[in-house]
């Protein structure tokens, strides 16, 4: 019996998981020390507040202790899905998110491929800086810019068209139901595309230059090199970012929608976040708004899992887990 448990002579016993972990920590203690604040941050700001989601199942009112609020089961969810305004917000959310994904996701990839092809380093830096700059402008300022450009009475567009002799009335694109979602997507792409290029350009920089040289010797032109080398080499990055983006699909951009919204277009761009804001912060209906938030998060999680599963099926080396 003891022969079964004791290792044979000369064989070093395999250390336990705990001792392996401790020895790793001892060896790389500096790295773990650096990791600690991030862990604390996640626990304090991401996990601990999760207790608040119980409000979605409780009759919580201002001044109450969340723990002592009475349980109401699925009441808030039933109320939420009984509200047409919420269903409209959900529909808008899906349409706007999908449009942003469709146009906003490939754009930074294309942009980074184009920037990568710029040979003059000064020009490259100039273009890179220029396209990243809008990311640091707040949505309030972005709306101000759009208003200053598109205002039918005092906008820059009117002046420009005036130079070409056009003096007719201009439509108010910021108050047009037909243009509302387009304006949202355009401003989203304009503001976010530059920042998105950073990751792709970093991935492109890591590609072995020998591949390009070999392809060049084999007679591949710039387009073929881009198609057969650059894109496949950054495929994993693209998929990871796609999964992240899909996970955020239920969040269609509160700041942007909030500042662009007005009574004329709210029916086309009101999303779950803005509806929750109205219910939760303006009307203090914390139960229903938490239920909506929980629904958003849960849907986002499912989307991430599905996308990850698809990514794994297509390419076993990609995906998150």
């Amino acid at each position, binding site marked *: 019996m003891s022969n079964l448990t004791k290792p044979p002579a000369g064989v070093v016993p395999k250390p336990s998981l705990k001792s392996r972990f401790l020895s790793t920590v001892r060896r790389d203690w*500096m790295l773990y020390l650096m990791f600690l604040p991030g862990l604390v941050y996640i626990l*304090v700001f991401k996990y601990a507040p999760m207790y608040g989601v119980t409000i979605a199942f409780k009759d919580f009112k201002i001044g109450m202790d969340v723990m002592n609020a009475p349980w109401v089961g699925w009441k808030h969810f039933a109320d939420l899905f009984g509200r047409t305004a919420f269903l409209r917000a959900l529909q808008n959310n899906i349409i706007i998110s999908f449009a942003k994904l469709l146009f906003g996701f490939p754009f930074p990839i294309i942009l980074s491929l184009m920037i990568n092809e710029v040979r003059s380093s000064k020009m490259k830096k100039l273009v890179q800086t220029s396209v990243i700059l809008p990311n640091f402008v707040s949505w309030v300022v972005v709306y101000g810019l759009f208003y200053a450009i598109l205002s039918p*009475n005092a906008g820059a567009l009117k002046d420009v068209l005036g130079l070409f002799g056009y003096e007719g009335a201009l439509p108010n694109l910021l108050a047009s139901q037909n243009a509302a979602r387009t304006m949202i997507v355009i401003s989203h792409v304009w503001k976010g595309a530059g920042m998105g290029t950073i990751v792709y350009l970093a991935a492109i920089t890591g590609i072995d230059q020998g591949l390009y040289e070999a392809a060049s010797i084999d007679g591949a032109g710039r387009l073929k090199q881009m198609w057969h080398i650059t894109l496949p080499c950054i495929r994993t990055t693209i998929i990871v970012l796609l999964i992240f983006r899909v996970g955020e699909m239920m969040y269609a951009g509160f700041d942007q929608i909030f500042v662009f919204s007005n009574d004329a277009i*709210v029916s086309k761009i009101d999303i779950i976040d803005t509806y929750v804001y109205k219910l939760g912060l303006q009307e*203090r209906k914390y139960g229903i708004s938490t239920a909506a938030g929980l629904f958003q998060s849960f849907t986002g999680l499912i989307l991430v899992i599905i996308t990850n599963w698809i990514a794994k099926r297509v390419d076993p080396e990609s995906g998150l887990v």
Partner: protein
Amino acid sequence: MKAKRFLSILLAALMLITVFAACGGKDGGESSSKAPESSQAGGAPESSGPESSNAGENTGDAVEVTIMMDGDNTPNATNMVLDKLGEMTNTKINMIYTPTDDAATKRSTMAASDTLPDIFRVLDVVTEAQEYADAGLIYNLAGLEDKAPNWFKNAGDLISQVPANKDGAIYYVPTGQLGYAYNLNIRTDWLKNLNMEMPTNLDELYDVYYAFTNNDPDGNGQKDTFGLATDADPRSFDSIFGAYGIPANKNNILLEDGTVSIYAKHPDYLEAIKYIRRLINDGLVEPDWLTIPAMDKFGKMWNGVAGAMEFQCVGPTNNWMPGRYTEEVTPTFGFATIEGPGGKKGVSPMFANITGGWCIAARTENIDACLRIADFCCTDDGNDLLYLGVEGEMFQWTDKENGEYEYLGEYTDGAKQRAEGGFCYSWLCPPAVSCEMRCFNAQTREGVDLAHNNMITEGVVDCQDVLQTRSDYGSDMDSVISEMYVALLQAGSDDDLQGIYDEYMNRWETEAHGSEWEEEITQWYNDNK
């Protein structure tokens, strides 16, 4: 290696400190606000009485008091008026000044986290004040009347009309102000330039707006003016709705069948919409009206772009005069009363209301200091300070009895005066008759009286009680009505209006629970009329 180790520890420590610093609240610092035992959840706090006071009055130290106000001005964070207010009340004022549109949200957030400021205004006296009172977030001031005699005397009997002030409790102190009704302010200098008279009916009004837009009323040789500066609020066409007998300030009206409903159900609502559409489609309304920010709309008047605006006359003829206007010659205004096809006329009513009062947070540690501030602000001297600025430095009286004054030096510039706190805080616990009212020029006084005399009150139902449907679905109902209004104004042709109206009203009645609310408010009306 040592340096590397040291740097690692330092960096990690810094990051940890940052994380925990973000968790820290203000309570540990200088703030005066800390929840007393009586403010815990589950019950309203009892009046603390004078013996519990630790205010500066007793100690001689200036205690810090946090006040939250809303407004669309941008005073400096510290300014002469706040310094003076602190000096007069032996306090150090920490002012949180938010844009009006964001105030309710900020207040709700602070309420949810029990960080309400010491003194704050609540506009929604029905639902919000009641919720705060029920939650024990606001101080029960009953028994403390002698500590702020001016403030309580000013509110008088209105205090007992507040739903939250039940059973002798005082959670909410109304200002007692009537509020300004709207005027149709029209530029008389432009009328004179065009040889036109003040309009009295809808046809004449159209002619005036047409001439303001197309006949170069400012004589600069360019087509750069419009008839009317408006926004997406129906009240910016108040006198046009009034000409059809409709009070458009989100009022409830009694319909012919005895039902109480929203103003949009008035039988002539679509007629008024058709008239407004004509103004818009003919280009007589400033075209940015749907998306224009409030201050930009005012700017259209200040810069001589528009010749008329529906707004309380106190702005165009008093507060903006003359510093806000940029034209070489200051514009002159008159007030029009517009009669409709059935001989109706008027503007949305303002009631001697309880809406727009002030509360003190239950968590305050300085109730005496809060009451001192409220009481001082509710005196003539206090409101003079908040409205005009520091006497002798920012303004001086030329005839105080008659409300005549002059600004001094750089404070003749309205922007400078407001940056130093003048005007911006004048609605902090104000007296019913404020400095602004005492100092009206003759024309503004006439305009305010005209607007009040012109209010539509017949058939208007003013409900200041908590109605459950309103509380549950109020925002959904309001959204449908606002969207409908804009959709009607933007419709392709007048023939489409009825269809759009029916569709939205159906949504309002069913999806937004408007029918349930109608039943509830009609019942309330029948019980209380």
